[in-house]
Structure formats: C-alpha cells, structure tokens
C-alpha cells in the first residue's frame, strides 16, 4: 500500500517529462511568432554588417561623412540624456576627423591589419549595443557601452595615426642617414 501524496511528491520530477514535446519546433515557432522584433533585428544586423565593411574600412580611408548609425544613436541619446548625446557627438566628430586624417595620410588596411580588425570588432559591438537600445531604451549601462565603444574606436584610430607617423619618421631617419 502506498501513500498517494508522498508517492506523487517523491516522483514529482517525473511529471515534467511525460508528454512528447518537440522543443526545437516550439522554439522555431516562438521565434516565428516574435518575427517582427527578431526580423527587424537580424535584418538590421545584415544591413549593418554590410555597413561595417564599408564603414570600418572604406570610410576611414575615404573620409566618408558621419554615419547613419551615429545619427540614430544620437537621436536616442538625445531623448534619454542630452548630456550623453552631446558627448557622443563630440566623439563622432573626433572619429570623423581622425578618419579624414587617415585618408589624407594614405594609410591602408594592409599596413595595420590588427588595428583594422579591432575597428571591425568595435563596429560590431556598437551594432549589438544599438540593437539592445531598440529593446531597452531606458538602460543606462547600454548608453555607457555605446560611448565606451566610441572612445575605444577613437583610441584605435589615434594609435593607427601614431604608429603610421612613427614608421614614417623612422623611414625618413633611415633615408636621411643613407644620404
């Protein structure tokens, strides 16, 4: 003879695995049901990924104007915290000026592959943070992440200019020695 209550309690965990459930299919359906949000997100990622390639490499070299993603971020930051929005615009301008300078100096990706790779990573991090901003506009840590990414990008560009200058100076010194 068994005590039904005790028996059921001691076998409780078995009750979570009785019926067949196609979890992958359910997860697929779940994603499908939430398509507007997800699609927008992944569509955005796709568009942005193409943008990264053009932005991260080409714009730095060819002095492209301020990026659309910066304007989007600025708009959102202005709504959330005008002080941060102002800081962001300052960083965007700095990055734009650095990009222009790099273009004028004729720096190519082949010269600094690691730094260019880091720029790409930073751009993808920025896109990820932007995507989060879509969903969590009230999250202060995300705004800080966005600004941190800008600062990191500015530092990488600064390093690139510095290293290029250093190389140029070394070359000039070597050639002057030969003369």
């Amino acid at each position, binding site marked *: *003879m*068994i005590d*039904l209550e005790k028996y059921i309690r001691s*076998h409780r965990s078995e*009750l*979570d695995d*009785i*019926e067949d459930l196609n979890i992958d299919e*359910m997860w697929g359906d779940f994603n499908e049901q939430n398509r507007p949000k997800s699609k927008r997100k992944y569509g955005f990622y796709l568009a942005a990924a193409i943008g990264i390639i053009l932005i991260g490499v080409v714009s730095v070299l060819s002095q492209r104007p301020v990026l659309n993603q910066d304007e989007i971020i600025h708009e959102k930051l202005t709504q959330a915290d005008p002080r941060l929005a102002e800081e962001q615009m300052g960083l965007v301008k700095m990055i734009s000026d650095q990009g222009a300078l790099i273009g004028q100096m004729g720096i190519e990706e082949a010269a600094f592959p690691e730094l260019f790779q880091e720029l790409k990573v930073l751009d993808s991090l920025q896109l990820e943070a932007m995507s989060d901003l879509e969903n969590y506009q009230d999250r202060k840590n995300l705004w800080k992440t966005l600004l941190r990414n800008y600062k990191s990008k500015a530092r990488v560009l600064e390093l690139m200019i510095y290293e290029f200058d250093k190389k140029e100076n070394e070359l000039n010194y070597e050639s002057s020695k030969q003369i």
Partner: protein
Amino acid sequence: MISKENQLLINKSLSGNRLAQGDIYRKYVKAMYHIAVRMVVQPSVAKDLTQDVFVKVFEELDRFRGESTLGAWIKRITINVCLNHLRRKGILQIDEWDDSVLQVADESNDMIEEIDMKVVHDAIKSLPVGSRTVLTLYLLEGYRHNEIAEILEISVSTSKTQYRRGKQLLKEKLKSIYHND
C-alpha cells in the same frame, strides 16, 4: 538563488542574445508546458500558453531580482498565465464545497504498490477544474492553502476541501485504472 550559469544566460538574454534566450527556453519549456497542460488540459492551448509565458519571461527578465530560482520565477509566471486563461474563458469557477459530502473511503490507502506517473498525469488532467487547480498548486507546485486561497480568491477552507476532493477523485481514478488491468 541564481546559479552562475543562469546569471550568465540572463545577462546575455538581457542584451538581446538570441542564443542565450534559446538556452533558457530549452531549459525550462518542457516543465512549464507540463504545468500548463495539467492546468488547461488541451495540449494545443497549453503550447500556446507556454509560448505566451516565454514572451513574458523575456519581456520581464530585467525585473527578475533573483529572490527565487529562475525556474521558480518562470513557474509562477506560467501559473499566472494559465489561471488568467482559465478566468478569461470563464472556466475557473470554484464552488464552496461541503466537506461532509466527501466519502470516508477517501482516507483509506488501499492503493497498489507502484504507479506509473503518466497515469497520474493523465488522471490529474481528467479532474474537475476546481479540484484540479487546487491539487496542482498544492501537491505539485508546493503552494500553501492560504496562498492558493489568495490566488484563486477563495477561502482557505474551500482550498482545503477542493484539495481533499481532488485527491479522493484522483485515488478513485487510479484505483479504477489499476484494478481493471
């Protein structure tokens, strides 16, 4: 209360990481579906409600404070979603039950030695909604009668009598199944 693994999944999910959300979903969906199907009975409805649960989970994850385990938090959402569904459909009507109608036979434990839990699961699903809900909350999900009374807006004594009734009906169903075999 939160394991390192879950904390990591929560953090990633909060930053919109779909893979982490998928991990949370896969980890808990089966248990939540089984709670739902015992409460609403129809599998298709239970599946829909389970999906609603996880929409809510990911929407409200930033409100999870870690005061309970993540599983317990999701379970509470599941129960609320199911109860709201039953209320919306006008199904969840729990009558005050006269304890005297319960038969004395209830207290006997002349059950067989071992029961297949699938049989228990199906038998619970076949109970009337009132006693099924109370029995599920009390016996399976660990709620106390005063908590059940508050959730279902019934008296504590009604919760207790509905539970006894549910248990009695469950025993009768199990006996009839096993004695017929």
